[in-house]
């Protein structure tokens, strides 16, 4: 019960602190993969995480094609071709929502204590989450594409362009995941994360060329839609999937994606280290 048993650390403070924090990069990748596997196992037991990125966009597709399609696009067949690339971008943004909600949930349960008491990289829970969510996003894209083909959507470009569109969707989805991660970590209550998520998604989705031609919108909205990253990504995907101009929109889409990543990845990481 005395201090006599305490011996000073046998290395200098700085070295020791470094050793206490450092996990090698290979180990850190291993940790992220273990967490990613856990997040994918979660999907089997809580498929609702998957429904957000599959069933919801299908419902949107059916409603927009068969209810509004004639009114918006003149006829359903033309509107279907117009809509599907937009829906694929919607899949990316719905999928990203889950990233934030799931991270928030992890932090509000006792399991974070377990993770933090293990000798693992601090980043593991965040990087594992993003990794698993990219897998979920890829699955969502595959499902919606098959669904679209089943209801008559046709691609008019070559397989390389289709792969390019999918790659852009993954990249854009990744950037949205980082926004969602930031929101999920910055806000305490899971319900608030859920509502916030939809709040920032709605203008991004509807104030864009996702569902309708911005040319028919009032001037102020048109101005917003034209710089909205959703429009740029959707129009690029349209070009890559059904044909049309690509280059101009692609540049803007990539610029936005990189910009979002550059801003929100560090923000999310900072928020994460604060709480982890």
């Amino acid at each position, binding site marked *: *019960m*005395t*201090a006599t048993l305490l011996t000073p650390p046998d290395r200098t403070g700085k070295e020791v602190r470094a*050793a206490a924090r*450092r996990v090698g990069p290979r180990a850190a990748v291993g940790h992220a993969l273990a967490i990613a596997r856990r997040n994918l196992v979660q999907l089997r*037991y809580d498929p609702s995480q998957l429904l957000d990125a599959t069933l919801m966009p299908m419902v949107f597709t059916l409603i927009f094609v068969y209810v509004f399609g004639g009114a918006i696009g003149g006829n359903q067949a033309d509107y279907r071709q117009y809509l599907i690339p937009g829906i694929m971008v919607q899949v990316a943004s719905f999928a990203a929502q889950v990233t934030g909600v799931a991270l928030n949930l992890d932090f509000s349960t006792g*399991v974070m204590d377990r*993770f933090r008491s293990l000798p693992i990289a601090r980043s593991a829970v965040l990087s594992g989450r993003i990794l698993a969510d990219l897998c979920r996003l890829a699955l969502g894209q595959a499902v919606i594409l098959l669904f679209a083909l089943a209801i008559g959507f046709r691609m008019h470009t070559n397989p390389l362009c289709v792969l390019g569109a999918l790659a852009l969707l993954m990249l854009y989805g990744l950037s949205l995941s980082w926004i969602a991660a930031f929101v999920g970590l910055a806000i305490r209550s899971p319900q608030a994360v859920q509502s916030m998520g939809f709040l920032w998604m709605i203008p991004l989705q509807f104030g864009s060329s996702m569902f309708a031609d911005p040319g028919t919108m009032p001037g102020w909205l048109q101005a917003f839609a034209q710089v909205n990253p959703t429009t740029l990504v959707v129009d690029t995907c349209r070009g890559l999937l059904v044909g049309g101009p690509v280059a101009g929109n692609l540049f803007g889409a990539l610029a936005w994606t990189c910009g979002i990543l550059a801003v929100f990845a560090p923000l999310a990481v900072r928020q994460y280290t604060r709480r982890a």
Partner: protein
Amino acid sequence: MTAAIEIDGLVKEFGRNRAVDGVSLTVPAGTVLGLLGPNGAGKTTIVRMLATLIRPDGGRARVAGHDVVEEALQVRSRIGLTGQYASVDESIPGWDNLYMIGRLLRLPRRRARALADELLERFRLTDAARRLPRDYSGGMRRRLDLAASLVGDPEVLYLDEPTTGLDPRSRNELWDMVRDLVARGTTVLLTTQYMEEAEALADRIAVIDRGRMIAGGTAAELRARVGGQMLRVRPGDGADLADVARRLSAAGEGTATVDHAEGLVCLPLARPGDLTAAVHVLTDSGVAMDALDTHTPSLDEVFLTLTGGVPTEGRTTG
């Protein structure tokens, strides 16, 4: 003996609330320390500092030879934590919980798989391997939590109120599992609100209240201060209570007292042989008995004796 845990003047403040107020203690390797105290005493806060989950505001702590602040990673690779609010992952099945931790600890896949199977077997959870922990009973969840904290084969294990809320059977089961671990040489720091639990498992007990250690020692030493186990006898109707008390007093070190209102005769059990002697005397007397039990002082009673007051935050069930 080397010390597995050395704490010196540990302090933690939450705002103006000093949750832990200068606690110092040493736990020799291979022994069990029971941290006994009421709700809000600071037990969980101490455990969380020792598990590197929160930083102390003052003092120092070394676990398995490593400083909890300066060498957090080394500490983490040597401890196991079973939190007060079970830290199992509710979102994946029991088996996956253990496999995940094995992989996080960089065990090869095959080894992690085998270990998960082995631990489930050892903690009798094999049948529940593929079910989500949210469908487990309280006892099963605790066992899974314990199994999860053992994947890394820790030198030091923290058990924060491991049996609170468990039925007596699950509690006894868990006690046996803890004894089994101690027999293998693991150092255990256990927090509890139950004197009985501290006595059953701990080599030494530290009593804490409002973030301060107010008493410490072996169970026997504390018992000597607090008053140890009490034999309570309820003779059948019509029996002469005073006579029974006289006979019992002759059998033991202590003096038996009569509680006329309850119809009870109570004898403090001071020495190990006292209980046997008392039972002999009762048998020889031929007096019919309705009930007979031994009673361990509750936390309330311990506190009454040590501090002259009841526990500060919410009286606890003993």
